[in-house]
């Protein structure tokens, strides 16, 4: 593809993502039927599922992409992989915050607290801290090749530790290994399913669009840095 084609494709992708997000916002707020058998507050709060679950899914996806890109960097030493890893990790942090904030808003009417040390919530906080540490590590080094190597190694450790942390906290909170999740106490009706999967798909497209933008930005930043170095700034 030529430069021009690529730019056009990116604009189209961005517009599609925007349209999909608008459509899922409509579905989430008006299109989907009310959940049955909940109090009035909880009926409204329940609609956060169309925002909360996709955000949570994207944060996992984004950190997964970071790990895969990190392995790619370590295997090939191509800087593009590192740019992809850092771009995706940044989006992962944003979606982690979005999922935490929306979850907290839901938890207040549903559980009567903003926060509880539930295994998912705790694991999620740890995951957030892992990738905050990832960025602190990156910012503590100047040399791009070393930064990419170290951050790559750390991303692998960080991502692999998430499922083990989840297991350990799940067992910690209950005597039995299996916990019935309060999130999944209700099933989704057919109308809700449509809205739910639409927003899941829309958010994923949004993630891809943002990732491409962020990746381009990162590459440009690197180019500017290299040029500056050549010019002796």
């Amino acid at each position: 593809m030529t430069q021009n084609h690529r730019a056009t494709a990116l604009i189209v992708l961005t517009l599609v993502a925007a349209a999909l997000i608008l459509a899922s916002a409509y579905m989430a707020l008006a299109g989907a039927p009310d959940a049955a058998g909940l109090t009035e507050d909880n009926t409204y709060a329940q609609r956060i599922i169309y925002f909360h679950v996709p955000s949570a899914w994207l944060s996992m996806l984004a950190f997964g992409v970071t790990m895969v890109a990190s392995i790619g960097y370590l295997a090939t030493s191509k800087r593009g992989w590192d740019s992809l890893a850092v771009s995706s990790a940044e989006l992962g942090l944003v979606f982690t915050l979005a999922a935490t904030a929306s979850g907290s808003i839901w938890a207040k009417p549903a559980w009567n607290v903003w926060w509880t040390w539930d295994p998912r919530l705790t694991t999620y906080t740890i995951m957030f801290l892992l990738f905050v540490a990832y960025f602190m590590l990156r910012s503590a080094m100047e040399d791009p090749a070393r930064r990419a190597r170290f951050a790559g190694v750390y991303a692998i450790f960080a991502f692999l530790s998430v499922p083990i942390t989840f297991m350990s906290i799940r067992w910690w909170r209950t005597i039995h290994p299996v916990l019935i999740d309060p999130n999944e106490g209700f099933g989704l009706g057919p109308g809700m399913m449509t809205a739910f999967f639409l927003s899941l798909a829309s958010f994923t497209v949004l993630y891809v669009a943002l990732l491409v933008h962020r990746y381009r930005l990162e590459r440009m930043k690197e180019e500017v840095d290299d040029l500056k170095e050549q010019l002796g700034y």
Partner: protein
Amino acid sequence: MNFWKAVFAIIRKDIRAELRTKDIFSSMFVFALLAVIVFNFSFELRVPEMKMVVPGIVWVAITFAGTLGLNRAFVIEQDKGSLAGLLLAPVDRAAIYFGKMLGNLAFILVVELILLPLVMIFFNLSLLTWQHLLVLFLGTFGFAAVGTVFSAIAVNTRAREVMLPILLFPVLLPVLVAGVKLTGALLDGEPLSELLNWIQLIVIYDLGFTIVAYLTFGFVVEE
């Protein structure tokens, strides 16, 4: 030079250097002891029975003191250029990792072995059984396996002493949770056979991250 000979040469070097200065050991031990005493006073007035918090105290003291020791592990290698010498030696990078890792493990284990009797005296508990020692060993192994890689990373960053705990603690959480759980359950008199899933969790953690460390350590020390 074969692999294990190189590993043991590095361990011997670290132990000999340590026996001459006793820097790492003394700072780790005094720090661990201070942590236990500080925790004692910060919990004593609020907790009905100290037995309830002793597992947490022991594991946090070990984690903090161990981090202190790990911080030194690669600082001493780098300050006098010894790491460059190690890397130039015709040995596998993995041998350097296992040498440093087992050395760190040995130092922390020695600190634990001296700390435990003191904790037993302070809190009137029995901690020197093979079950307790097994749990401590498994937890410390995971700690050293991950900590050695992160210490090699942290030493190359700005603000290196601060970086290590920030990198290490979130990854270490499963070990800490399982360790506190196991030590607590053993103190409550539960048999080890009923806690096998926790042992399993630590063993999986230890094995998994030792393999990841083995695979990635070369990238960390590569120049």
